[in-house]
């Protein structure tokens, strides 16, 4: 910049205007930037740092290099049980949720009357607080005194142990997840109702039956919503905590909230990754190790999402997109 340019009053005014615009942009971005920094970037970076330390919450973190990761991958016998249980959720609960919500949405969309009422009825459970809903399920599925087994007994069937059985605890939690599927259902319902009627009619005129209309018209049209539900379902499964935490404590015979000694009950079958992470961080005070577990979870969540998104290119159809 030379002296002449600096002295140019029009140039100064332009620079002032640019500066003002930048300040406005910065001010508008500030709430997001502060939130992002304080509640995402800083905790993430701090967790990454703590994952390389021995940190018991009480004394200063001490650098131990990769020891936490070595223990995680090579020594800790419980971690694989937690991983296995969480993978089970991804493999069973997520598809069950998606299929159930989609099936319900299709059924409701076909109803000629009372769509609003049906939509409300199926959405209502999603409004129940998670802890209250879980307590309700523990009561309903109590193997000895619960109404479900009482009814089964009345018709001559010995009901399973539900949340108290190693093989049935996870499937019972899936039932709870299906019961509170309302939010996903509403999204699917909106997508299904949004399928262009003229396409369905054209397909019908071309002789397509209901399955072919669903397979070649409805499914491609709602595929972005399907992708969204799968990604969110997988992330939720990786963070699955509250229901398992409450159910284990109460099913074991404790009170709501007295769950620390029952984590993973029965016999570790509900010891999901976040439950074990919580136990390490807040019951055993191994925050350094818990941070390493958190980083691994983040990497796995990212990897799974990437795999799903890359794979989705083959089956997700966006309107207006040339295929």
């Amino acid at each position, binding site marked *: 910049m030379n002296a002449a340019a600096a002295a140019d009053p029009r140039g100064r005014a332009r620079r002032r205007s640019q500066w003002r615009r930048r300040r406005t942009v910065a001010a508008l971005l500030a709430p997001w930037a502060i939130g992002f920094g304080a509640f995402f970037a*800083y*905790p*993430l*970076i701090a*967790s990454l740092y*703590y994952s390389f330390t*021995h940190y*018991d*919450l*009480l*004394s*200063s973190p001490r650098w131990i290099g990769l*020891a*936490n990761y*070595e*223990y*995680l991958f090579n*020594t800790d016998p*419980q971690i694989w049980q937690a991983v296995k249980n969480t993978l089970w959720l991804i493999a069973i609960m997520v598809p069950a949720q998606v299929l159930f919500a989609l099936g319900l949405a299709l059924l409701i969309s076909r109803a000629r009357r009372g769509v609003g009422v049906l939509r409300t009825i199926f959405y209502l459970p999603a409004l129940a607080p998670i*802890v209250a809903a879980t307590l309700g399920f523990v009561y309903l599925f*109590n*193997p*000895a*005194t619960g109404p479900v087994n009482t009814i089964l007994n009345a018709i001559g069937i010995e009901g399973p*142990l539900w949340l*108290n*059985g*190693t093989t049935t605890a996870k499937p019972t939690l899936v039932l709870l997840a299906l019961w509170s599927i309302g939010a996903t259902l509403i999204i699917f319902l909106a997508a299904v109702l949004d399928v262009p009627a003229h396409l369905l009619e054209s397909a019908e005129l071309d002789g397509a039956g209901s399955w072919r209309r669903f397979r070649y018209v409805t499914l491609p049209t709602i595929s972005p919503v399907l992708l969204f539900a799968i990604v969110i379902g997988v992330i939720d499964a990786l963070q*699955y*905590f*509250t229901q398992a935490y409450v159910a284990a*404590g109460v*099913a074991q*015979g*404790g*009170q709501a*909230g*007295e*769950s*620390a*000694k*029952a984590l993973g*009950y029965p*016999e*570790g079958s509900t010891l999901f990754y*976040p439950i074990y*992470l*919580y136990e390490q*961080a*807040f*019951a*055993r*005070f*191994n*925050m350094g*190790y*818990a*941070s*390493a577990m*958190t980083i691994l979870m983040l990497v796995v969540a990212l990897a799974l999402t990437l795999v799903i998104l890359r794979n989705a290119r083959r089956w997700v159809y966006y309107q207006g997109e040339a295929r």
Partner: protein
Amino acid sequence: MKVRVVAATALAASAIFAAGCGGSGSSSGAGGDIPAYNSSEHVTISYWVPFTGGELNFVKKVVHGFEESHPGIKVNVSGNINDEKIIAATRSGNVPDAALSFTTNNTGVFCKDGTFLNLGDAIKRDGIDLNNFPAAQRKYTEFEGVRCVLPAMADTYGLYYNKKMLEGAGISAPPRTMSELSADAKKLTVRSGNSFKTVGFTPYIGFYENSAEHYGPLWSAEWQQSNGKSAVASNPGWAEMAEWIKELVDYYGHSSLVRFQSGAGEEFSGSNAFQTEKLAMALDGEWRTALIKSEAPKLQYGTAPMPVADNRSQLYGSGFTIGNITGIPKGSPHPAAAWELIKYLATNVKPQIELTEDLGNIPTWIPALEQAKTKASPQFQTFLNVFANPHTTTPPITASGESMQKTLENYLEKYQAGEGGDLHKGLEGVASQIDAQEAQAKAGNTP
């Protein structure tokens, strides 16, 4: 009464948040600085305790007695505070003046890095004779030479039995050995199809007060070898205990027993299975006497020491003891007044007798214990005797807190369900895991 309450609403993501938001705690070492209290000083102090409901009111009543004897000190008692909250407060700077914990095993966690102030100098200055605390209580309030907490009432365990049911089954006296306990349990069990009307005794780990910690002493099963390594695999008592538990669980059928237990009622409620006569015998703490008095006063029951392993009959009369610990967290705004409070609760006959009468706990100050003996009901006297028995033990205080108990119980839960594989290999795995956890807590080279 021991009530461990844990916060029920933590999401997995909170680990990230908590890790990120936590400042780095500073290690101040174990030395504590507790000045002498100036009686002309007027202060209001906070006291955090885990008690809730009626028990909290009893504690407040006792603390009120302290306020009367110390006119310059007013105490705000907050209930339903667990160790997580105490630790979080210590880190955040919102520190209570004094706190009480149910988790005796966390003494090592509290003492090792000065999270609770070292009480050694104050004890010496005020001339407190530590011999007025029973040996077990002296042991579990100290970690590696640092005494950072005082005992404030203790728990011990014994056998509760339903007199009417035992008489009905022709059993003239409570069992003294594990074989007798098994035989009596089977005699007292009344089946109803695939379920039970009454269960004689359930040994199931995880049910009510059944835990490795409470059973172990009955087989002389120790937690550590002389070199500090885990004795879970090397001490034969643990394997014998596991086999005894499994044999009795198998008798009932694991699935049937779990079904019965799921309908047995909450432990700390009026629907407790022993109180409602669904369970003929139960391992339980001394506090149950107070609960029965208020919730099931018509129950005809007796108490006895827990039966012991058949080959260790000399242990009969002994058991397991543990108790509340109280101390002054680092950063306490008024450590001098806080010291007066915890000293009052731990080393005075009056509050200890009041807590014995109200909570049904055992005094930890020997002069109070002697006085309690003169007033005890026959049922409560059993626990005083178990408490005084020289063979009664308490687990070692370790740097890793409750980890060793949790690790062993995780395995035993699987073993009793028939999913633990080879017992000796399983226990070896548990022992090496406990050693790894303890090594990390001390040296920090693993998590």
